């Protein structure tokens, strides 16, 4: 009996290990973060990009309105790519686009907007990147669709035609 139990338990243990690794083979090795949506937007204090006055999050986002928060920076190349899409979204829909200027030089940021246009209704500054962390962002560019002070959709990386079309459907 004892002689049989040992090989049997070996087989079971190695069977389990084999199963785990075999299953792991089929899993994607790329980590995709679970997008935490339907979360309340964070409360924060910042400064207005144009006036330099301090602003509170509650004064930016009102209830019952659709907002797109876009994290951008003049040094970020993908932001330059997605900018025309934001411009067209602003002109075609009534969504309010709010900009979060991320770890940027104000002069460069102003020139960026002068060159490519300003789709933002309001811009606030995140100098040390901590407000972006409060939002659960990874970097620039990143966009959050907000309704009733809740994040309903999160776009990591630059926006593209597909995400903009999806956004337009959600707005309607």
């Amino acid at each position, binding site marked *: 009996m004892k002689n049989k139990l040992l090989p049997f*338990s070996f087989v079971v243990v190695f069977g389990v290990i084999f199963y785990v690794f075999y299953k792991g083979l089929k899993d994607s090795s790329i980590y995709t973060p679970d997008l*935490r949506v339907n979360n309340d937007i964070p409360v924060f204090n910042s400064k207005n990009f144009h006036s330099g006055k301090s602003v509170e999050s509650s004064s930016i986002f009102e209830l019952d309105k659709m907002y797109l928060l876009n994290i951008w920076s003049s040094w970020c190349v993908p932001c330059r790519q997605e900018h025309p899409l934001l411009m067209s979204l602003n002109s075609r829909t009534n969504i309010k686009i709010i900009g979060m200027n991320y770890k940027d030089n104000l002069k460069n940021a102003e020139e960026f907007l002068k060159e490519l246009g300003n789709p933002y209704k309001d811009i606030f500054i995140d100098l040390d990147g901590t407000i972006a*962390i409060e939002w*659960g962002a990874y970097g620039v560019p990143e966009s959050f669709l907000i309704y009733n002070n809740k994040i309903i959709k999160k776009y990591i990386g630059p926006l593209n035609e597909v995400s903009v079309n999806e956004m337009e459907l959600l707005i309607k």
Partner: protein
Amino acid sequence: MKVLSFFLIFFLFLPLSSLKGDDSGIQNKITKNLRCLVCQGQSIYDSDSEFANSLKILVDKKIDEGLTEAQIYEYFENKYGEWILYDPKLNKNTYILWLMPLLIFLLGGAIILGKLKKKQN
């Protein structure tokens, strides 16, 4: 008298300096336990990316606000999910990770016991 005042000053400053050392210690401990989500296999402590640098500042802020270590972990877990923690909790995704060493230990113990009994016989 001089000796007395020296000791008085020494003990006056002792708690302050130890408090400061303790603070940076806990900051290092927390940042070592947080994963840099935009890097490959680095902790926040090791990384110099924009994301990691901002997170370090925020950890400092949260310590200053008086949050405990556990509260800070919970805060970041709420923002980014459990993946940001290097010390995963026991749940359905991690039970193999936690139970495997115990299983192997028990199996090893059983084998040794079996061999010992065989020798005695």
